[in-house]
Structures are given as structure tokens and as C-alpha cells.
């Protein structure tokens, strides 16, 4: 998988230009990351974690780091929330919330692949740090808008959410874009102190075209609670990694996700929960509506480490194929190294219930409407997890869009 000479040449040229503008002290750690990236290259299908999401095509691209700031046009800001808005990684004026932004970022120990590429170029972004016992009184909506630049561009950001003991916050990571040929990577470092509670929404509604990769690494201390809801409504090539470490006893996480794809999209979700301590609870519930000319990959993994007794874990994955040509690779995975645990997992792939459809039609409901009702029913379990009415309303209306969900149903 290591890169051939001359491959990645465009990235080397871009990196050189970028690094020249840095001080020597800044440059050193970036160069380490970049050489790790060069050594490993983009992951391809020979790597198990990337089996269905080969990135080798990216090697040929020439993405220029973002320099311009696109115009802000009216954006989907939700009521009753504070907002941070990034357009192509550039922060827009946000006087009240700019304290949650940082121009700089911490770099991880040298890593490989996409993570190394991100670390080599990364600029800062969200930096939400709450002291012990404090609480965000409003949800924080962080918008990542991607817009066409004059040429294909890339942006890489690193973010931090750090909640002190007993601190509480609700954060929305809101990705949307115009589908221009871009490459964006985002890394989120999430650290929850004892008894802290984070409710995190990650919503992606990009147009087909660009490439977006996100990684969320969350680490939970004793009795911390992490509730994540992830929704993918569109997208070109999308890859999400969500890694949750239940590091101390009593930590609890629930992850619920829905992917309802636009045509021609490729959405890959990798969710991994590591039970590293005893008495922790995890719930994973993902549902997919997979249409023609789209590919969905879901990989859920629960690891119960030695000593993590009394682990209580459940993983459920259900997919609905909306066309015979839809493609889905869903895999629940369980690795258990402790004996006193309760772990359940299951995955299903099915089709729209024709009998239910016939029943609704027999009551006078038009076929398209009946299908939309059944799709919504399938998604309901996940939608019910969105405890933010304005956000839920926005997502429901996006799901109802005939162009999103009913157009290709005739197949």
C-alpha cells in the first residue's frame, strides 16, 4: 500500500508550498506527519477497514489547500442555538461563539493514511472546553459548509470537545455542501470527564460530488454519558469513523444512526465501541435506506477487553434496499475477552414491505405517499432519538423531499 514514487506528487508539491510558510518549529511535526502519509498513501481495498471504500483514486487528484473564503449566503441556522460557521474551513464572523474557536490545534502522535494527511495540513476549528460542572445553556450548531473554489480544493481541520467532570453540552456537527470537487477531512477529539454528558449530532447533507471524511475519537471517564445521533442524507463519497472508548466504569454510550442516501452516493460508517472497564453500557442502532446507484457500508464493532466484566452491549443494524440494484455491506462485529458480559448483535437487510404497501393503498393512499410513509416508519426509531425539535423537523422535511426518497422507487 505504500505509495509509488511520483504518486502523491501533487500532495508533495502542495505540502512544500504550505510548509514554507510555517516557522521551523511549526514545520517539524507537520513534516513528520506528511512523511508518514507519503509512506502509507491513501488506504485501498486491501486494508480491511477500507475494503469497500478504496481511496486510491484520490492519489491522482490535485487539491489546493483552501485560501479563499466563499460568500456567506443564508444558511440553515437553527433557532434556539448558538452557531459557529465554517466555510471551507474558514471561520465566519461569529462574535458570541468565537471563544469556542481556535486557530491552532494539537497534533496527534505520528499516524498514517488519512489521519496523517489531516494532521499534516490541519488547521484548527471547534475548541469547546467546559469547566467542571458547567453546562452550555444552548445547543451549539457548528456548520461546515463546503463551496466551490476556483479549483479543486481541500481542507483539513482538527477539533476538540473537552467536558470537565459533570459538565454538559449539546453539539451539532452540521456538514453541508454544494457538491463541488473537494476533499475535506475532520478530526474530532472528544474527552468526557467524570459524569460529564455530551449529546452529539452529526448531520451530513452534502450534494453528490465531494469527498468528506470525519473521525470522532471519544474517550469517556467514569459515569460519563455520550449520546450520538448521526444522520446522512446525501453526499458524494462519505466516510465516517466513530471510535468510542469506555475507559472507566459506569460510562455509557448510545449511538444511533440513519443513512438515507442521495443517488450516486457512497456512505461508509465505521463505528467502534471499546469496553475497556467494567460496568459500562453501549447501545448501537443504525438504519439505512439504500437506493439505486448508491453504496452503503456499515461496520459496527464492539470490543470487550479483559476485565470489562458486567459489560452490557447491544448492536442492531437494519437496512432497507429500495432497489434491486442497491448495494449494502453491513457487518456487526463482536470481540469479547471477558466472561461475565451481556452482548447482543444483529443485522438485517430487507425490502420494503409489499403487504403493508398494499394495505395502505387499499385505503386510498397513493403509491408514492404510501412508500414515503413506510420509509419514514423505518427511520422513526432513529428520528425519535433527536431530542431537538427544530433539528428533527429539518431532517424530517429533508427525508420527505420526493427527490430524495421517492424518485427512484419505481425500480
Amino acid at each position, binding site marked *: 500500500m505504500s505509495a509509488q514514487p511520483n504518486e502523491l506528487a501533487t500532495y508533495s508539491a502542495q505540502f512544500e508550498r504550505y510548509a514554507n510558510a510555517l516557522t521551523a518549529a511549526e514545520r517539524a511535526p507537520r513534516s513528520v506527519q506528511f512523511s508518514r502519509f507519503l509512506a502509507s498513501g491513501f488506504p485501498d481495498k486491501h486494508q480491511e477497514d477500507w475494503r469497500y471504500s478504496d481511496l486510491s483514486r484520490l492519489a491522482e487528484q490535485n487539491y489546493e489547500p483552501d485560501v479563499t473564503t466563499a460568500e456567506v449566503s443564508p444558511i440553515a441556522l437553527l433557532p434556539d442555538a448558538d452557531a459557529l460557521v465554517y466555510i471551507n474551513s474558514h471561520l465566519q464572523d461569529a462574535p458570541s461563539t468565537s471563544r469556542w474557536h481556535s486557530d491552532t490545534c494539537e497534533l496527534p502522535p505520528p499516524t498514517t493514511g488519512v489521519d496523517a494527511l489531516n494532521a499534516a495540513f490541519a488547521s484548527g476549528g471547534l475548541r469547546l472546553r467546559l469547566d467542571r460542572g458547567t453546562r452550555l445553556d444552548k445547543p451549539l450548531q457548528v456548520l461546515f459548509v463546503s463551496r466551490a473554489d476556483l479549483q479543486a480544493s481541500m481542507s483539513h481541520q482538527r477539533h476538540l470537545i473537552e467536558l470537565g467532570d459533570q459538565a454538559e453540552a449539546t453539539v451539532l456537527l452540521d456538514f453541508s455542501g454544494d457538491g463541488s470537487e473537494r476533499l475535506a477531512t475532520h478530526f474530532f477529539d472528544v474527552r468526557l470527564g467524570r459524569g460529564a454528558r455530551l449529546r452529539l449530532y452529526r448531520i451530513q447533507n452534502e450534494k453528490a460530488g465531494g469527498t468528506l471524511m470525519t473521525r470522532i475519537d471519544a474517550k469517556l471517564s467514569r459515569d460519563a454519558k455520550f449520546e450520538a445521533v448521526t444522520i446522512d442524507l446525501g453526499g458524494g463519497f462519505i466516510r465516517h469513523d466513530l471510535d468510542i472508548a469506555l475507559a472507566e466504569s459506569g460510562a455509557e454510550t448510545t449511538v444511533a444512526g440513519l443513512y438515507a442516501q442521495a443517488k450516486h452516493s457512497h456512505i461508509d460508517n465505521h463505528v467502534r465501541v471499546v469496553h475497556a472497564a467494567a460496568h459500562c453500557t453501549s447501545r448501537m442502532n443504525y438504519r439505512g435506506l439504500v437506493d439505486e446507484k448508491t453504496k452503503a457500508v456499515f461496520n459496527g464493532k464492539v470490543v470487550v477487553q479483559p476485565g470489562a466484566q458486567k459489560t452490557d452491549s447491544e448492536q442492531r443494524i437494519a437496512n432497507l434496499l429500495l432497489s434491486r440494484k442497491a448495494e449494502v455491506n453491513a457487518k456487526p462485529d463482536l470481540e469479547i475477552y471477558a466472561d461475565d458480559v451481556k452482548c447482543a448483535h444483529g443485522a438485517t437487510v430487507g425490502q420494503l*414491505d*409489499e403487504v403493508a404497501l398494499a*394495505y*395502505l393503498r*387499499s*385505503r*386510498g*393512499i397513493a403509491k408514492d405517499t404510501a412508500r414515503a410513509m413506510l420509509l419514514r*416508519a423505518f427511520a*422513526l426509531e432513529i428520528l425519535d432519538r433527536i431530542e431537538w425539535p427544530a433539528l428533527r423537523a429539518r431532517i424530517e422535511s429533508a427525508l420527505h423531499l420526493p427527490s430524495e426518497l421517492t424518485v427512484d422507487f419505481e425500480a
Partner: protein
Amino acid sequence: MLEINNLHARVEEKEILKGLNLSIKPGEVHAIMGPNGSGKSTLSNVIAGREGYEVTEGSVLFDGKNLLDLEPEIRACEGIFLGFQYPVEIPGVSNMTLLKAAINARRKHQGETEIAPNDFLAWVRDRAKLVKIDPKMLSRGVNEGFSGGEKKRNEILQMLVLQPRLMILDETDSGLDIDALKIVADGINALRGPTRATVLVTHYQRLLDYVQPDYVHVLARGRIVKSGGPELAKELEEKGYGWLEAA
């Protein structure tokens, strides 16, 4: 109102209806009886327009219109209602959502505006009372977790809410206790009137004690093999179908 002529229909290459004739006028109640597997549900489904049935010969006219050309939802909007032998459960679509979508589909078809929310609630609440369904159950998924009898009462509720002109009830009386049977019968009788017609598919005389039919037909081997008045049902209850099969 409904004219069925020489109807032949198949399911998966197997001919089930083999030249069936039936004529129903407004105001009439017809009971259709017959052995298991004789094609009663097939006939009901063909009239309602369910997919999976192939009509190879014959015609079905509803108010003079060729019914077989219409999508099932259009047939429903035109006033045909089928109470299913096995109502399905649809978790995630509440009974209220179904009822509202169904009412509004029909209103739209007739060129009317959507029903006002308050009128809708009142309309449903009153009818739920008639069939003794707790309105709370209606916020659950369609038939979700309903008992067999509750499902059948729910079919009657949908019928009362939608006020069809042609009601086809496929064994709505099967599996009901005495009280529920009475409720279902009351529901059917409540809609009985000079402009509406009813087809009762049943195996038992019991329902016909409460809903007096004008005609009783025996469907066997894909055809109506005998027709008569209410007394035919009593005769069948005593003698079974053997004497007809032999004939």
C-alpha cells in the same frame, strides 16, 4: 353498482376464479360462503385491486366504470373498501396517520380540501367509540400489538371513518367473541343504507343473524354454484357443502 361477468383470475399461474358472475345493486347485502380455498379472498382482492392477481377473462364494472383499469388506491377513493381477512401490522405508521392520509386522499380525489384537524379528531373519536376502541390505541402503529379481535374492529373503524359505498368484508367475523361480533355487526348496520352495498364473506351463520343479507351465494371451485336468500345460509350450516359439490 357492481357487475361481475365471467371473471377468470389466476394467482401464480394457477386459475382460481373460473367464470364468476355476480351483480350487486345499491342497498343490497350479499353474503358469500364457500369451502376453504374456493377463491373468496381472491375475489375480494381482485375487486379491491391487489397486485399479484391476473385477470385473464371477463369484466368487473363499478358504476359502469371498468374497475380493472384502476389502481387500488383509486378504487378506494371511488368508494370501495376491503376489510382484510388478515389485517397487517405496520409499526411506525400510526392508525391516526393512516386514517388522516386515507381521508385526505379521498377528499383530494373528489376535489375537496383537506379535512380540518379538529373535524378529523372528532370524526374519528366518535367512530372509535362505536367500535369500542380506546382512542389511545390509535396513536400506536397500525394494528401494532392489537389482538385478533381488535384488528377486526379496527378494520370496521377504518370503514366507518371512510364511509365507502361498497364494503367487502372478508371474514371480518372470524375469531371474534360474542361482544365483538355484535360490535362489528353494529358497525356494518350503521353504514347500511340505500346508496351503499355490502359483501360479507363468511363461514358462519352467526354474523348473518345480526346483519340480515338479501342474498346468499356459495362460491366453490372458482364460481358461484348456488344463490338464494338468507335461508340458504341456514341450510349450509346444517348440511355443509358436500351436497353442492356433488351437484
